[in-house]
């Protein structure tokens, strides 16, 4: 009975996290389209939400990596999954609060690994999987997106150099409808699967799925897809402003190349099961598209702040996940601890939202410069 109540709490928390993931990462998907005026903000967010939902059904390889490749599925308990989710959610809320585009994915993985370390020790963590499937791709992906976008924008400018700026900009604005759509699809494919993986872990911990034969149930796919799509639709303008307008002042060609580079990297990584951060990849693409035009076009100070947030994500979420697990077991060895923590975190989250409403931001697209 306690186990069922705790399972329900974990699933609800995981779906809430998935919602915040969509909310938090809307910026990655739509920021460049909005900042170059390729598509109106509400239409961009609606398109992103719909394609996030569709994208979640394309592949399950990332979910399999999360469920089996990073921690020992057989050693997972419901309080561990819960503590991991809380670690990730708190990091997400904190970075959203200050407007930094950090990685929901790495927060989730960090949270689960931290809680696992606190509960079962290092032997229950697959450090080879963590390094080979998360850390190395995490370091490579933004650099790859940077390179793809930088090379692509240089070639694009060369090809279109003799065109009048007006028609060229119109052409790339139209292209951003498709590059934005592909990026939304890629985001849904990679990010929704992480929640699917965590819910599957919880079902393994509860005994609903055998640890020897881990498979993602269809209802998990549908609920995770719905939660991330809803979160995306609700959106978050704060990070859109940082990513789409403050790192570089983008023209439509830069927006198109940044989005295409991001979509290519995320889809290629999803294909081999890497739980990549869409945030890292898109920011890498945006900076690459800026640097490819002119190095001084990038606000490197802000890019540095984002990089610091990225570096801190895994260890901080792991520390919060571990701390949450310890506090939860101090309160109670059963379901009471997670319920008390859930109530406390909900209250803190609500307070953060109410405070932010006092300083509500509205989107103000930057001028296209080309």
């Amino acid at each position, binding site marked *: 009975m306690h186990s069922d109540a705790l399972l329900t709490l974990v699933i609800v928390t995981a779906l809430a996290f998935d919602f915040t993931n969509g909310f938090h990462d809307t910026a990655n998907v739509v920021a460049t389209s909005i900042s170059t005026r390729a598509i109106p903000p509400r239409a961009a967010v609606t398109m992103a939400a719909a394609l996030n939902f569709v994208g979640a059904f394309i592949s399950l390889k990332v979910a399999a990596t999360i469920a089996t490749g990073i921690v020992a599925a057989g050693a997972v308990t419901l309080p561990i999954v819960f503590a991991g989710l809380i670690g990730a959610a708190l990091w997400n809320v904190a970075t959203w609060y200050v407007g930094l585009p950090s990685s929901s994915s790495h927060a989730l993985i960090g949270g689960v690994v931290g809680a696992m370390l606190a509960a079962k020790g290092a032997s229950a963590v697959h450090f080879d999987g963590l390094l080979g499937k998360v850390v190395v791709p995490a370091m490579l992906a933004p650099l*790859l997106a940077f390179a793809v*976008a930088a090379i*692509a924008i240089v070639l694009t400018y060369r090809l279109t150099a003799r065109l009048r700026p007006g028609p060229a900009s119109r052409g790339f604005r139209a*292209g951003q409808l498709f590059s934005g759509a592909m990026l939304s699809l890629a985001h849904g494919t990679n990010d929704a699967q992480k929640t699917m993986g965590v819910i599957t872990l919880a079902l393994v911990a509860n005994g609903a799925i055998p640890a020897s034969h881990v498979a993602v149930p269809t209802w998990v796919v549908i609920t995770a897809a719905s939660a991330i799509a809803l979160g995306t639709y609700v959106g978050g303008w704060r990070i859109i402003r940082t990513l789409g307008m403050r790192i570089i002042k983008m023209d439509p060609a830069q927006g198109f190349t940044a989005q295409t580079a991001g979509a290519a990297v995320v*889809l*290629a*990584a999803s*294909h081999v099961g890497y739980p990549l951060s869409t945030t890292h990849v898109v920011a890498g693409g945006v900076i690459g598209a800026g640097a490819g035009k002119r190095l001084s076009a990038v606000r490197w100070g802000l890019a540095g702040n984002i990089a610091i947030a990225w570096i801190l994500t895994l260890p901080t979420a792991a520390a919060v996940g571990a701390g949450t697990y310890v506090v939860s077991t101090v309160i109670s060895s059963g379901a009471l601890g997670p319920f008390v923590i859930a109530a406390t975190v909900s209250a803190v989250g609500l307070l953060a939202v109410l405070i932010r409403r006092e300083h509500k931001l509205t989107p103000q697209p930057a001028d296209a410069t080309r």
Partner: protein
Amino acid sequence: MTLASAIIDTHALLQVVYVSLLAGIGVCVVYAVAVVGITRAQERRRANRPRAAVLYGLLATASLVACVWAIVLGITIMATK
């Protein structure tokens, strides 16, 4: 076998690198060619040069078809594996 190659699936990682480079740069370049084709076709039509307009129009169409093909191929490969 080194420790690094034991931990990291270099085949998968390299696959991500070359697919991203090929697809990302390829789609951008081909789409840029399409933008050039469309713009030049419009200019030639206004300049009353219909043959050049048709040729640029064909270039634009072929480029757009190639872009759509690349996107559909990518999604199909992901969905079928």
